[in-house]
């Protein structure tokens, strides 16, 4: 996704990336980064949590419109409300992705 952000930025569109992996986005030189310590697939919070998604989107828009230099990173101080172990399991697919299945098969060899 940082690659796509960079391509769109180069095409003339300011971008902000809302990501649970801001370290990787920084390394890939995404122009504006909003870090959220949320499980994958939940960039704007949990289903039905209007307050959190509004806060995340407003923060992203503030960063988009207000930052003045490439590589600006802000990390949101919002703790995920579920126990970490539970959330860690919940975002993952019921069946391992083809890539993970391939990696696991290689490890077993």
């Amino acid at each position, binding site marked *: 996704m940082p690659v796509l952000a960079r*391509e769109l930025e180069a095409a003339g569109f300011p971008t902000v990336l*809302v990501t649970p992996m*801001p370290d990787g986005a920084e390394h890939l030189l995404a122009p504006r980064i909003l870090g959220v*310590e949320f499980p994958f697939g939940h*960039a704007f919070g949990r*289903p039905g949590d209007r307050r959190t*998604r509004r806060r995340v989107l407003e923060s992203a828009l503030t960063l988009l419109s207000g930052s*003045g230099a490439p590589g600006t990173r802000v990390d949101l101080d919002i703790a995920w409300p579920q126990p970490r172990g539970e959330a860690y399991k919940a975002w993952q697919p019921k069946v391992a992705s083809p890539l993970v299945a391939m990696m696991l098969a290689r490890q077993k060899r």
Partner: protein
Amino acid sequence: MRIDSFAFLPRSFRPLFERPPRLPEHEAAVWTPFSKRLAEAKIALLTSAGLYVKATQPPFDGEREKREPTWGDPSWRPIPADVTTPELGMMHLHLNETDILADHEIALPTGTLAELVLEGVVGAATTRHLSVMGFQQAGLEVWRSETAPAIAALLREEGADGVVLAPA
């Protein structure tokens, strides 16, 4: 404070994501200034959750990915700004889709953006937002050469002033 980028990731995945390889063309910073006030600007949203409109669009190609595990479908879908959750399907083999299919706003907050437009915080939303399928390894070059230019053309047509991208 700095958040933990690996808080919800299996430990074995960490080396893959810690310092992902940079493309040779992406070694320098890139920047387009945001030139308007937010209250006068038109904003687009983009998710990589693999969302599509069930009635009118095909799902992303998961069958080929099952055969070729390092390949991800590099195509894209325009998503109407007034879409409702039941109209959306999701094809992403790396995620549990349950929560997004219960409330798409957690990946693509179309309604939340519309609220901010109504309140005058944001000038406007594009009539179409965007969806891609975020797992890209072998498909990355097509993302760069075809998908990104096509999305940029749509954003130009829509008069977008900025984009909020949310990886899934």
